[in-house]
């Protein structure tokens, strides 16, 4: 059996969600790998771009920040923030945004701002950045996070970015015309949202993970009725990830032998 690490599984599971032709708004870290794996395997016509304005960079090396020089090298076009964000929200484009978060709730809303009181937090994070913008404007959002009770929570300490808001039609009623949370990819599995209620549920657990383990690490009661085991990474997926996408191993360390 192939050996692979947790973050490799996450990158590949998320990559499989990208459709050919999608405009993928990538962050750094695992989400960048997911986008790049997707483009090289399942979605050759996907276009990767960054909130900083670099469209379709060569990505011969992995960027360490969205403003890394590597996101402006070999691109189709370099522009500014206004152009980048207006592209994410453009009605004629199917744009998918990758997001990170410190907390997610059962409607896919995200916190990247703080733990505790906003004005005097126990722990302060980086803030929205482009997170709120892409969660508001993109056709769909995919979030990455570690699967922990304190991270998958009933109530966010601060709602930085809106997913399905309070479920049902509440997102549309806010005036957000499209988009919403597509999936949450954790180190334990893949979570989707019910079509009508917009409540989160476990769609897939990764090989080696049990449903109980997922439940134990979730801060609210999780619907697991339709959960099935995810397909493990294929040899091709792993080879591309390790040899082409992140050969320096900056993001994903392969598992210890």
């Amino acid at each position: 059996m192939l050996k692979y690490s947790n973050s490799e599984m996450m990158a590949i599971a998320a990559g499989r969600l990208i459709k050919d032709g999608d405009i993928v708004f990538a962050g750094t870290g695992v989400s960048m790998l997911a986008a790049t794996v997707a483009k090289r395997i399942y979605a050759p016509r996907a276009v990767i771009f960054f909130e900083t304005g670099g469209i379709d960079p060569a990505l011969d090396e992995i960027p360490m920040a969205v403003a890394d020089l590597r996101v402006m090298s070999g691109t189709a076009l370099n522009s500014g923030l206004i152009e980048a964000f207006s592209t994410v929200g453009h009605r004629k484009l199917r744009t998918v945004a990758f997001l990170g978060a410190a907390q997610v709730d059962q409607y896919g809303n995200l916190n990247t701002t703080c733990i505790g009181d906003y004005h005097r937090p126990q722990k302060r994070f980086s803030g929205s950045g482009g997170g709120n913008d892409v969660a508001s404007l993109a056709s769909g959002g995919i979030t990455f996070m570690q699967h922990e009770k304190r991270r998958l929570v009933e109530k966010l300490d601060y709602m930085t970015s809106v997913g399905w808001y309070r479920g049902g039609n509440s997102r549309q009623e806010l005036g957000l015309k499209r988009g919403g949370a597509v999936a949450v990819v954790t180190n334990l599995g893949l979570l989707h949202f019910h079509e009508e209620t917009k409540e989160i549920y476990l769609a897939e657990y990764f090989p080696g993970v049990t449903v109980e383990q997922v439940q134990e690490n979730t801060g609210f009661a999780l619907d697991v009725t339709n959960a099935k085991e995810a397909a493990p990474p294929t040899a091709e997926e792993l080879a591309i990830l390790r040899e082409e996408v992140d050969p320096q191993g900056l993001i994903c360390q392969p598992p210890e032998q």
Partner: protein
Amino acid sequence: MTGCSEIAERLISLDEAVEEVIFDGCQLAIGGFTVTRNPMALIYTIIRRGIKDLHLVCHSNGQGMDILVGAGCVKRLEIAYGGNGRYAPTCIRFRRAVETGKLEFEDYSNYQMALRFLAGSLSIPFIPTRTGLGSDLMELEGFSSEVRREEKVASSKYARVDNPFSAEKEEVPLLPALNPDVALIHAQYVGEDGTVRIKGLTFADLEQAKAADKVIVTFEELVPRSFIRQDPDQNSLAAFFVDAYVKVPYGSHPTACFNYYDYDPAHLNLYRHMAEDDDRFQEYLGEWVYGVESHEEYLRKVGIDMLLKIKASPGIGYAPGLDRK
């Protein structure tokens, strides 16, 4: 025109630029984004000269914002993102200042801050947005009502108006324009005629510069008129927007400058390590800011070995194979 630079009288030193343009309490915008093209040489000079009570207006600023906050120069901050990418997912002195209540701060999103600079650059008082709806960005104000009454602070964080062009009721959020007192920009090229050319991504630099009352541009290279005018489609900012120019090679170290040099991973890691502890951070400032008399001395401390390692490869724009862990 005579072969001499047409901007000779605006070509001054770092100290002169800070002395002439920046004042205690001023509202300041800094160009660049996280680990790229921060106007670091100017920022070090601001810290060294003891400027205080700055009102910093940022979108996603990393290194430059964090060291200004850490050095105690900043009283008030409007920001979308305080991070250095993988080198500090949350900027450490920024985090500490917020957690210990040492900063007046207000959160916006990145697009919103960029739009606020755009509105300022267009001389319009506000601009609509489609983001923020339903989120705590719109529910919670960071600034107190006292702060809201102060100069250069918008009277409210957002406003809402019914779309007058829509048949159905549709509420649209409005963002207040930003017109900082000063914008600091680091560019690759300045022509003898004062024309500024930024290569690679421009972030919100141009909107910041056009929104500001005064603009200081630091740059890597002064180039002939014939060079800068050969392809004016590539140029970024006309000379009449710039109040002071300072030639500062490696002026954004340890952040990166496309086509010139990559970020300095060793320095960013050192900074993170030093920033994690209050005393160590003062040591860092002592060694790298207060203890350094000039930008040349700073570069000697960085050392030629590192400057060669981070040198950008032509045609690629960054330093391929650089050890970035």
